[in-house]
């Protein structure tokens, strides 16, 4: 008779040892790079040519004495807040617009919002630049004089463009919340004599406050730490932003270690503070709108309502204009000849896809990097999620907390950490200086995607009733059998989604790519950014369109497979069909779910 000891020290040691590899993975990929970055705030000469452990806060203080840094901080705050404010209004309008649209129109509207959601922000920023600059598409179409769009290249213009980029966060949160506010709540107010206006302001809107707060705070956090806009627009608009200052500090010679560390700390601190505020706000009040008695709203008009028309205009502005501009520019033989009839050609596409050409090399490299990162993230995410969900050791709990905490770390900060962590002197004797290698870049990609993947898969696992596992155990199945025959088939849609999520995310990932790509082998996002910075708009646009097409095809494939897996069984305990946002994890157990989409996506920067 085999006895399983459950109370002895050995059992605890075994549980700890089993989950320790997860902690090691988190430590290598996230904790060590972050530590390497932030330790320089107190030991500024740690990564100097001659390593020194001399404690000093002076270089850190100097960061705040530099007017350029302060301007960047102020710009990021003002633009982030402004963009979040307008995004909140726009997102609320489009959410109600979607709610009040006929079914097919609603689907179309929501699909377009999704497109904006996962479009890389630097691609959108570049589209706006092509459209709005002097001699750009609008100027050519309407014969506008040079300087006509100077108003656009200001912080105010940037606020508008960024709000059009970040309103999907509010939209997605609000559409879900609006759907969850049951008919009975407004119905009971109506029976007591309340008019439509009163019901909206006194019943509906207060109930939507958590979604509004969630959407607004994530929009701010994303806008504040955005690198895509900063990378595309700062060189053109001369509006320094905090994230670009970090990038610049790491790219100047000599590298300004303290500035990179100090500014990164600021970025993380402000982001975390906003999200903590939102968390606190939600914790102090109850906004439960869903109960077992909730009747989902079934409002579905037959014709487009005015608010739906406005919503369509907004989404077309947000994605249609920049994408049309990018596609148009990619088809111009010469930028200077613009929209002239003789100037349309597919030369840049053939050039980009030319065998042995720069474009094809970058694309191939990115596809390979994305493939490796996606497979690794999917497997690591699943194993670690299993350990966090079923492990009872302190280490498992620590990994759980760490994956929640690190989900809010901006990609740029993590990438900056990698620069120091894997270029450190102490790694030389053990031949582990990975900086500048494909391994380092792929590790950064995995580090950026892993917390999402883990939270997503924990969400899927925790949605499955524990009795399903117990039922197998009492029938004699061992752990390995339970995982293989019960757990994996129940969460396979999420596992597949994690692969495609990481793959598409990495293909257009800019911060880590920019800071860590191997010399002479730039991945696709770096090449695109370089083309735009060199004013080779048409080539850059062609590469963008090719990349976006691949992403859309892969996204479609992923969605197809995930939906098929879900449909095959159509069971109630399905994988979490939702979008995960890195910023918030209200429950501490489950990742925040913003939508009922069967295939989750991670937004790209």
């Amino acid at each position: 008779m085999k006895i399983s000891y459950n109370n002895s020290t050995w059992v605890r040691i075994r549980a700890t040892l089993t989950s320790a590899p997860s902690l090691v993975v988190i430590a290598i990929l996230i904790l060590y790079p972050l530590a390497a970055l932030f330790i320089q705030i107190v030991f500024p000469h740690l990564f100097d040519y001659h390593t020194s452990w001399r404690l000093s806060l002076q270089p850190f203080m100097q960061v705040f004495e530099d007017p350029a840094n302060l301007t960047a901080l102020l710009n990021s705050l003002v633009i982030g807040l402004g963009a979040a404010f307008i995004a909140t209004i726009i997102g609320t309008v489009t959410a109600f617009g979607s709610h009040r649209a006929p079914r097919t129109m609603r689907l179309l509207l929501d699909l377009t919002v999704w497109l904006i959601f996962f479009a890389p922000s630097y691609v959108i920023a570049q589209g706006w630049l092509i459209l709005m600059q002097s001699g750009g598409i609008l100027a050519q179409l309407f014969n506008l004089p040079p300087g006509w769009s100077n108003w656009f290249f200001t912080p105010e213009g940037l606020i508008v463009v960024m709000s059009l980029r970040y309103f999907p966060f509010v939209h997605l949160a609000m559409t879900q919340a609006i759907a969850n506010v049951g008919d009975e709540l407004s119905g009971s107010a109506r029976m007591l004599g309340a008019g439509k206006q009163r019901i909206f302001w006194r019943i509906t809107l207060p109930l939507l406050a958590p979604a509004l707060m969630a959407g607004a705070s994530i929009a701010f956090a994303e806008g504040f730490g955005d690198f895509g806009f900063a990378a595309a627009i700062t060189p053109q608009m001369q509006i320094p932003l905090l994230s670009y200052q970090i990038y610049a500090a790491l790219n100047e010679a000599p590298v300004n270690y303290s500035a990179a560390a100090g500014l990164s700390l600021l970025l993380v601190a402000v982001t975390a503070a906003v999200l903590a505020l939102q968390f606190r706000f939600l914790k102090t009040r109850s906004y439960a709108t869903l109960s077992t008695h909730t009747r989902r709203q079934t409002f579905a008009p037959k014709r487009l309502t005015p608010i739906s028309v406005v919503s369509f205009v907004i989404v077309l502005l947000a994605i249609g204009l920049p994408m049309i501009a990018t596609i148009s520019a990619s088809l111009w033989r010469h930028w200077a000849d613009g929209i002239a009839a003789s100037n349309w050609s597919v030369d840049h596409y053939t050039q980009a896809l030319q065998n042995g050409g720069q474009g094809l090399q970058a694309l191939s490299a990115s596809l390979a990097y994305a493939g490796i990162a996606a497979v690794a993230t999917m497997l690591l995410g699943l194993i670690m999620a299993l350990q966090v969900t079923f492990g009872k050791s302190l280490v498992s709990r620590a990994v759980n907390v760490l994956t929640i905490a690190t989900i809010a770390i901006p990609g740029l900060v993590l990438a900056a950490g990698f620069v120091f962590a894997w270029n450190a002197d102490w790694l030389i004797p053990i031949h582990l200086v990975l900086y500048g290698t494909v391994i380092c870049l792929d590790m950064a990609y995995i580090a950026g995607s892993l917390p999402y993947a883990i939270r997503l898969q924990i969400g899927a696992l925790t949605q499955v009733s524990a009795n399903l596992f117990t039922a197998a155990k009492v029938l004699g199945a061992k752990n390995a059998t339970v995982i293989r025959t019960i757990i994996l088939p129940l969460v396979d849609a999420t596992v597949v989604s994690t692969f495609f999520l990481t793959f598409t995310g990495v293909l257009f990932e800019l911060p880590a790519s920019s800071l860590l790509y191997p010399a002479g082998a730039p991945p696709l996002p770096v090449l695109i950014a370089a083309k735009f910075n060199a004013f080779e708009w048409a080539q850059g646009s062609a590469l963008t369109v090719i990349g976006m097409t691949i992403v859309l095809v892969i996204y479609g494939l992923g969605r197809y497979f995930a939906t098929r897996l879900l449909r095959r069984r159509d069971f109630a305990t399905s994988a979490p069909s939702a979008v995960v946002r890195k910023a918030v994890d209200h429950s501490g157990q489950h990742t925040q779910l913003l939508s009922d989409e069967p295939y989750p996506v991670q937004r790209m920067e």
Partner: protein
Amino acid sequence: MSFSLHDVTKRYNDKVVLDNISLEVRQGQLLALLGPSGCGKTTLLNALAGVVDIEDGRIDLDGRRVSGPGFTMPPERRNIGMVFQDFALWPHMTVYENVAFGLKVKRQAASVIRARVKEVLGIVQMEGYEPLFPQQLSGGQKQRIAIARALAPRPTVLLMDEPLSSLDAKLREQMRWELLHIMKTTGVTGVYVTHDQVEALSMADHIVLLHDGRIEQQGTPTFLYHHPATAFVASFLGAANLLPCQVMDAANEYAQVEWNGHRLYARQGTAHSTDTRLLIRPSDITVEQETAQNTSETGARITGQVIQRAFQGTVWQYRIRVSGGSGVSGDATLEVWHHGELPVNATVRLWLPADRCLTVADSNTGAHHAGGRARMV
């Protein structure tokens, strides 16, 4: 196959959820673990299954120790079957795959598996459903498949965690009969967790009533119903008037008690002189005609007034206000079930036969009273 528990104790942090539980289940017996939410019945079932560890005591399965302080035989080695409240059918497997799972894990030959699946599906009357997925079945069908899955590997003990609670009332009653039939047909030893006294009384050979992690009382259904040791047991096993009273005199098996100024007669139960309640079920009180003759039977007559009534189908449910007797000014209320229809405000004469009244200890848990009013359950 029999099993026994000896002084089993389980704590979550500092809260004791199982407190020195000792019981024994014999081969082929169906034991019901009955109690309100949070009494520890599901924890006890999970301890039997091996998915919950125990801190103290021991659990023996056919004389072999399977759980004790510091060790637990894993569930997969206990040869038990389990039926869950939410059925826990694997949604990605067909009915056949669900039922065959336990046999496949035990590496049975394909022909043996096919035959056994057919056999157990026959027992639960679900032949022909093999290719369907759980989501294509109704609640009752899912429950049958869950039972078939648990029975397929021929478990020594079948554990059932509120298996009927997620079914509607009509289906629950039907499944109760069927489950009983299946248990008797297979002869498997069973442990049945429920908070529904009707299920426990109608199905179990032996009931263990749990309260706050302790065994309040255990015995056969009829014994527990007719000889509840405490007010809690009396109230949990059916509607009961639990009248706070004082024992005035006792002789042989009967006692004379005073309730609200009235002298009543009752069989002597487990009550002590203090904290005593007189138990009489609403159906045991007789509503008499004014002209009724005194009988030779021992008992008490009291007069009251109908203050509320509700038609329950087979009987009328009445709330009767009884004025205080000698030296007591307050009123008390009794619940009475009677076949005849009486108008509200009607004055009625009630007969409380002594052999239907029982003194029980006030466990100070379920029974409470205020202002001399009896508690009606």
